[in-house]
């Protein structure tokens, strides 16, 4: 029987409204700001693509972008191998498996700004365990003054906060490997490395794809932790894209340039994530041949 009414729209409507208010309308406001100029008083003037041009020519934005790429690259290069290594060494069953799982997930449960505060205190040379220890060893460590100290601290903080996620995902991948694979490998006299290379790594690839995507996207828009820890300093040395963006939009109230900036920022994340995804799923397909 054919029904000729439009009632089905009522079922879709809540989703449309939700998506409109949570994504489309805010995004369009940003688009709106990005093509206009204002001198306050709620007066706006058409600026066309002017802000996009200035942003693309702005050394400040490019610096922040390279800083951001370097940061994401470094933390991925540390967290993924380290997470896999930790997962390989986690107990597979028994009481300790549960204990380790709970301990591993603790950092993931701590709010971002608390993580920043923890490391801020941890690194202080007067009362912080890390700062005090390094100081008494005669190492010149001060994350508010030194470029390298600031970077090392920000990276250590991210590794501390997020390696667990990679480890837990890799652990889930490892747990799904049937015992028969390890037994067959023993019969074939495979070395520990061969077991990792030909059994564990291929079986973990799906979850590692997800882990890399999640960690990339998340690290690329990192804000709270470095903001609390270093405030983007010393100088601009830990001013990542989102910190720079907030400075521009709320600190200087440059709404137009900030809007253009954030749209390009959004595009960059989307494009890189998409490329990651395509490359990794293509590897999968080749495997199925």
């Amino acid at each position, binding site marked *: 029987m054919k029904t000729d009414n439009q009632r089905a729209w009522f079922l879709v409507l809540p989703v449309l409204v939700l998506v409109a208010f949570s994504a489309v309308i805010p995004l369009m406001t940003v688009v709106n700001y990005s093509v206009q100029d204002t001198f306050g008083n709620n007066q706006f003037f058409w600026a066309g693509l002017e802000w996009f041009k200035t942003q693309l020519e702005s050394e400040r934005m490019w610096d922040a972008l390279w800083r951001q790429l370097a940061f994401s690259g470094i933390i991925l290069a540390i967290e993924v191998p380290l997470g896999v290594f930790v997962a390989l060494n986690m107990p597979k069953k028994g009481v300790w498996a549960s204990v380790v799982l709970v301990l591993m997930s603790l950092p993931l449960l701590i709010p971002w700004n608390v993580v920043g505060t923890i490391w801020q205190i941890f690194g202080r040379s007067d009362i912080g365990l890390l700062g005090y220890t390094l100081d008494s060893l005669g190492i010149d460590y001060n994350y508010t003054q030194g470029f390298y100290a600031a970077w090392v601290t920000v990276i250590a903080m991210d590794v501390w906060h997020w390696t667990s996620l990679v480890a837990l995902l890799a652990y889930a991948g490892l747990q799904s490997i*049937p015992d*028969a*694979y390890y*037994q*067959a490998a*023993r*019969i*074939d*006299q*495979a*070395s520990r490395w*061969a077991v990792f290379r*030909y*059994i564990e790594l*291929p*079986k973990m690839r799906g979850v590692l794809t997800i882990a890399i995507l999640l960690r990339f996207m998340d690290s690329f828009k990192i804000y709270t932790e470095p903001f609390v820890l270093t405030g983007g300093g010393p100088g601009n040395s830990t001013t990542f894209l989102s910190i720079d963006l907030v400075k521009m939009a709320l600190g200087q109230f440059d709404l137009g340039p900030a809007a253009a900036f954030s749209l390009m920022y959004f595009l960059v994340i989307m494009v890189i994530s998409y490329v990651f995804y395509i490359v990794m799923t293509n590897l999968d397909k080749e*495997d*199925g*041949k």
Partner: protein
Amino acid sequence: MAKITLQSLAHTYLDEPQSPEDFALQELNHDWNDGEAYALLGPSGCGKSTLLNIISGLLIPSHGRVLFDGKDVTDLPTADRNIAQVFQFPVVYDTMTVRENLAFPLRNRGLPASEVQDRVSRVGDMIGMTDVLDRRAAGLTADAKQKISLGRGMVRDDVNALLFDEPLTVIDPHMKWELRTQLKKLHRDFGHTMIYVTHDQTEALTFADKVVVMYDGRVVQMGTPVELFERPAHTFVGYFIGSPGMNVFDARIDGSKAQIAGTRFDLKTGYKLNGGSTKIGVRPENIRLGDHGLPARVKRVEDVGRHKIVRLDLGGQEVAAVAGEGAQIPSGGTHVQFVEGGVNVYENDWRVPPADGEPPLEQNTKDAA
């Protein structure tokens, strides 16, 4: 290839076993002769996989020794025993080609490349996969993957034994038969010692020269398919092998006379009994319906195509009988008779041989499958 000897072997998963029930595998002594094909048959949880894992070295037994050609290997790890095992679920190295899969055990043992190449192409030929050698193993069907895991074992020509742990579980029905036939042919052509674990009687009986039936952690009988079918050593074997399984009646036996459900009949030969509980086992194939014998009632008839299975009630006990496809089945009361030589006598569930010796087994008796 080697003769495998199990000496007073037993296994428990507990640290301090208190009673025989704590053992997954009851004490057993057994020889697996060099070059023979064995099937280990039994229901789930009977200890057959435990036994297989002990032979392959994946499990170290809590009691007893395992010998390969007289050499004690009980504490040797799997890799040093030089055995091959095919598992229930196909194990292939996904990222490698078929060729690399087959070469893997040889490369791990550090063989020169030319020799690896030789052996891989020979094994590829044996398992009939020469034309897919350069395909990735991940994309192949389950039965092809099982052949690869088999090939990874056969590629080592000094392999002591090939072990199979329910290898056809995930194979499509129409491929099962073909793969089993190929296994059998490989055994005939190359003479490896093979031990095949299964809970499927058809697989066991068609694959093996000798079938070892396990029940509740112990070996209850080892024999050829005909022996298992005609002379089950334990009522469980009678019940487990055959379709439908053997009828087992509570019976009173006095010399050569027996009584089932109040009706006496002659067993033709005498039995020496020690006063335990006695039973009589008769295969459905050895029961005839007619005007003489034990009174019974027909309850229903199942037509399975080749023949009919008649379900009867004999003094409160359910009985199955096999009748020819064209046979007339009476609808109500009838009588059943046992075919001569088709009657087995059990005391406390173990078979008692006739007092004046066993008659020779007819080798052309009906196949169990």
